[in-house]
């Protein structure tokens, strides 16, 4: 039996995707945990950028919010938000934007706005925050979310943050923006986006997970890579950091 949870696997796999990354724009929630794990493991020189106005954070604890005081003390630079959104994000200085999501479609378009019609929503979600801005302006985007049919839908109720739109070169035609989502990390496997069609493609299964199990959670016919890798399980060190340093309460690891 596994001695780790699916969420721990997901967070560890996410952190590893940041191995060669210099600057990451950290979204709220799971991305926050993954980026903080990466800085303590594969990417000690990773510069954490928070939309609240922080560049080069070295948080001494896992911040609950992306505007926590622990992000400021000991940071490299703290700036007003117009400065951060314009001179860092819009200027193309962010290598990776790391986002969570409530709904995602096969082309990596993200919905964090509403379930149901916009004017009469069944569920009113938080909205864009910096999501739409990061999705367009970071050089590329990583997405982290748990698999579920509620999340992985054929048709979004609302496109908050553009991914590859209708696929192919649709995003390229938008203009001078980043390349969009390149990797999606879930609790059962890792997806990459096909170079041509831009459809998300399962490229790695986490240990003890199956393609059929993943398909069950996805609302369209899943695309699977010809060579499907198996994700390496969380290392003892990854688990120790998550459990002892980042999330002793287990909020994100459950």
């Amino acid at each position, binding site marked *: 039996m596994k001695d780790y949870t699916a969420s721990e696997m997901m967070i560890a796999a996410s952190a590893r995707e940041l191995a060669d990354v210099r600057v990451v724009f950290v979204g709220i929630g799971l991305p926050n945990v993954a980026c903080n794990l990466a800085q303590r493991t594969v990417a000690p020189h990773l510069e954490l950028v928070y939309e*609240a106005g922080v560049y080069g954070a070295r948080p001494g604890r896992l911040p609950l*919010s992306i505007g926590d005081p622990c992000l*400021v*003390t000991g940071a490299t630079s703290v700036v007003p*938000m117009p400065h951060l959104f314009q001179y860092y994000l819009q200027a193309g200085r962010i290598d990776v934007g790391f986002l969570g999501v409530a709904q995602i479609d096969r082309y990596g378009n993200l919905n964090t706005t509403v379930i149901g019609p*916009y004017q009469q929503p069944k569920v009113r979600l938080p909205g*864009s925050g910096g999501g739409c801005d990061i999705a*367009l302006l970071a050089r590329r985007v990583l997405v982290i979310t748990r698999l579920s049919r509620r999340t992985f839908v054929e048709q979004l109720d609302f496109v908050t943050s553009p991914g590859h739109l209708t696929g192919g070169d649709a995003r390229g035609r938008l203009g001078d923006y980043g390349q969009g989502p390149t990797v999606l990390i879930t609790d059962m496997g890792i997806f990459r986006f096909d170079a041509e069609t831009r459809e998300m493609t399962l490229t790695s299964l986490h240990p003890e997970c199956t393609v059929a199990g993943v398909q069950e959670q996805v609302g369209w016919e899943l695309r699977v890579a010809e060579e499907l890798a198996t994700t390496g399980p969380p290392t003892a060190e990854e688990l120790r950091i998550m459990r002892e340093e980042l999330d002793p309460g287990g909020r994100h690891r459950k």
Partner: protein
Amino acid sequence: MSKVTTMRDAIADLVRDGDCVAIEGFTHLICFAAGHEIIRQRKRGLTLCRLTPDLIYDQMIAAGCARKLVFSYLGNPGVGSLHAVRRAVEKGVPAPLELEEYSHFGMVGRLVAGAARLPFYPVRTFTGSDLPAVNRRIKQVEDPYGGEPVHVVPPLNPDLTVIHVQRADRDGNAQVWGLPGMQAEAAFAAARVIVVAEEIVDEGVIRADPNRTVIPGLIVDAVVPESYGAHPSYAQGYYDRDTEAYLAWDSISRDQAALGAWLDEWVYGLSGRAEYVEKMGPSVWQRLEPGEAWSGQVNYGLYR
């Protein structure tokens, strides 16, 4: 000139029913004390503006102060939903709430345009998103230099902005360290400004480090000394963000009755922030007290 007054008088004098109000502060320095006083004085019909409405607008909306919300992120940051806002939007309880929404960058642009008195502000975002379709205030202009059209947002000019700061002098010259957020822009964009300060200091403290001054007294109408006025948000170096309070709000706010009881106990039942601080008790303030991490100081040089 001293502009020092009480929160009660500042809110009574400077907030009018129907006003467009911004209690700014991105996670940091959110003036809950001002929001509670607005609830207590039963102001009505407000348009509330903030990037992240946070708990304070959830409370003000539950209390019936607002008719409209202008925002970019409608969550309890790091926790989940703002249930009172959701009740208003999804079910019209206690009253319907009009929404006008942007991305963070869109709100940033609106406040910069407001502060700079520009007719619009260009932001290279929104393309491919459904946001412009549901918010017609997001427009495009042609690039006269031959590039792609760019989205623009209109200025946002609140009738009143409340800014919480670590320290200010009696004239309202105010200094902030840690996250500056949109504090300067929200204040410069407003017709009236209330500065709420953890500490009132001598003018000389301000003038000793002019690079830290984010708001000049010139644009300030009232200065309110209010220790712990940003709790459960925080003031860098003064007290920590109260994570427990943010987590607790999730269950309090799921139920309109429980929320009402909370407002009775913590807002209507108190005369002001001093009572709130006392009722909260010393163990809370002790738990939130940070250690020391001093900035060091620099020499501006004396030139005569």
